[in-house]
């Protein structure tokens, strides 16, 4: 019989009861962890062997209900899917278990996930379609049309990405990567005719333009859904369907093409001017400081790519949208 490998791990476990505690604290446990175990097994052992009052969410134990997401050493993860030995390989033998969001903690690993669900609801996460109750034939969706959804329909709403997103932490309005994934799933559906969804998710403040492109969401998703890929698609769809508004965020994206077409290389000052318009004045104090240090080039000193004619030609022949 083969022996099961074990490793000793020191766990620091976030404890908090919103009804009783003023501040959270950490309990420490030392355990032998086996190569067979996932993070959820550790949560179970803490509750069953050490402290029956320890609280966490779990249901399916098969990576499908989305209830068990927590953070291990700051990294969002699905407890029932994540292998303990992988965590030890990544972070060593001292591991900290936290809820997905400390400031939303209700009891230990359990958080108030309302903001997540509200944002999900806000992106019209369903098909908007006139359905004939007595159709003469089936509504066929071709495999190609189905492929447009990519894997957005595999989301289990675990919230791992949402609470890993730095913008969600800072900007309360921001819908977040999971809501955008849901928005994409329905906006990419050929049967959908929603008039608001794409506009809503393109609105500044709450929408995709506030994404900092950090790829944290892509990194944590236990379903390997890559939410920022869907965010990029939502940007593109706004242009393709003509709902992109003339605002600083949109001009910032468009400005790259204008600059590249003109000189190949980006004209940094020109991009800021084109994006901001008259609001550029607010950048003057920083610009002056930069100018003094030789960090701003005069228009005649901005380089131009060699063989610019090639670039101009390609911009003409390869553009797929106009704004």
């Amino acid at each position, binding site marked *: 019989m083969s022996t099961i490998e074990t490793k000793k791990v020191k766990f620091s476990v976030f404890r908090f009861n919103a009804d009783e505690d003023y501040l959270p604290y950490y309990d420490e446990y030392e355990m032998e962890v086996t190569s067979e175990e996932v993070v959820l097994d550790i949560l179970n052992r803490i509750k069953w062997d050490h402290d029956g009052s320890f609280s966490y969410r779990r249901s399916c134990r098969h990576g499908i209900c989305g209830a068990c997401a927590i953070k291990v050493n700051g990294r969002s993860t699905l407890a029932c899917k994540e292998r303990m030995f992988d965590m030890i390989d990544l972070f060593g033998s001292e591991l900290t278990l936290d809820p997905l969001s400390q400031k939303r903690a209700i009891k230990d690993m359990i958080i108030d996930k309302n903001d997540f669900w509200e944002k999900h609801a806000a992106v019209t996460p369903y098909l908007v379609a006139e359905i004939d109750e007595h159709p003469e034939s089936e509504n066929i969706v071709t495999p190609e049309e189905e492929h447009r959804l990519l894997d957005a329909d595999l989301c289990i709403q675990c919230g791992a990405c949402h609470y890993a997103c730095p913008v969600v932490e800072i900007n309360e309005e921001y819908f977040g990567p999971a809501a955008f994934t849901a928005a994409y799933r329905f906006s990419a559906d050929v049967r959908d005719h929603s008039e608001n969804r794409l506009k809503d998710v393109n609105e500044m403040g709450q929408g995709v333009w*506030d994404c900092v492109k950090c790829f944290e969401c892509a990194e944590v998703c236990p379903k390997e859904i890559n939410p920022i890929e869907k965010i990029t698609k939502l940007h593109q769809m706004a242009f393709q369907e003509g709902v992109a508004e003339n605002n600083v965020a949109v001009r910032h994206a468009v400005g790259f093409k204008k600059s590249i077409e003109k000189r190949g290389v980006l004209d940094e000052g020109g991009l800021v001017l084109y994006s901001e318009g008259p609001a550029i004045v607010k950048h003057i104090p*920083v610009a002056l400081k930069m100018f003094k240090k030789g960090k701003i080039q005069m228009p005649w000193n901005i380089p131009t790519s060699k063989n610019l004619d090639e670039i101009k030609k390609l911009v003409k022949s390869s553009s797929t949208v106009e704004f």
Partner: protein
Amino acid sequence: MSKLKYALFTGCTAKQSTPEQYMSTMAVAKKLGIELVELVEASCCGASHLQDYDEFLSLVLNARNIAYAEKHGLTMVTICNTCQLNTAMTKHKLDKDPELKAKVNEKLQEVGLVYKGTSEITHFLYAIIDDIGLDKIKEMVVKPLSQFNIAPFYGCHNIRPSELANEGHKTPESPYNPTSLDDLIIACGGESVDYEEKNKCCGFHVELQAPKTAAVLTGNAIAGAMDNNADMMVTPCPLCHLKLDTQADHAGEAIGRELEMPVLHMQQMVGLALGCDPKELGLQHHVVDVNFV
């Protein structure tokens, strides 16, 4: 060992808002005996924004840049995390999808170019670690940075998405526990500072459209380094550098405390340790003075 030779994709900031990044790249390459062939034909990579507008155009333009590196038969070296991301992402997509590659090549043909997929693309940081090696750097150090606590700031696009990031270099890097820059700091004789924000985002990409978010992220990063007794930060990304060096005041206002931290480009740190002249490394071009050397 034959002389190392790469095709250098400078990106746009190296010739505009971060001239010191270009200067220090050249100075360090010279010291390390690396030959750099500058891709003067290259256009802007689109900085992860052009693709939001027109993805196909972005692919064609980046493929053109790579095609020039291929013409030289050289690995493309980038000196900006976002250039690295966009260029490597283009390569990844085209190499995986022959149909897309054919479509892109149809366009490139119009200007007599072809994308083959023969050139690797790697950030200068990893070129140094993979091809020169940390031991060799250590040997070459003449002015160890031994009195300094240096906080590494990795920048998102060199470490995430990790699958793509790890295609570009031999030394594996985890986005949760990155080590390359720490190792380089240590090789240069410095003390590497561990802090929570080292693998977090600086906020650069929403500077215009979401200034508050951008400022808080920059603020958190500088504050994290300060709270852990860093004397300076170091980053391989000129966009992170711009945020940390030129926006510290805004960032401080956003998080309600005073912030100031000298920030080195990765190349400047290596250059200092290897005995380059600070002027040659462009230290005079920083908004936050680097006056300890």
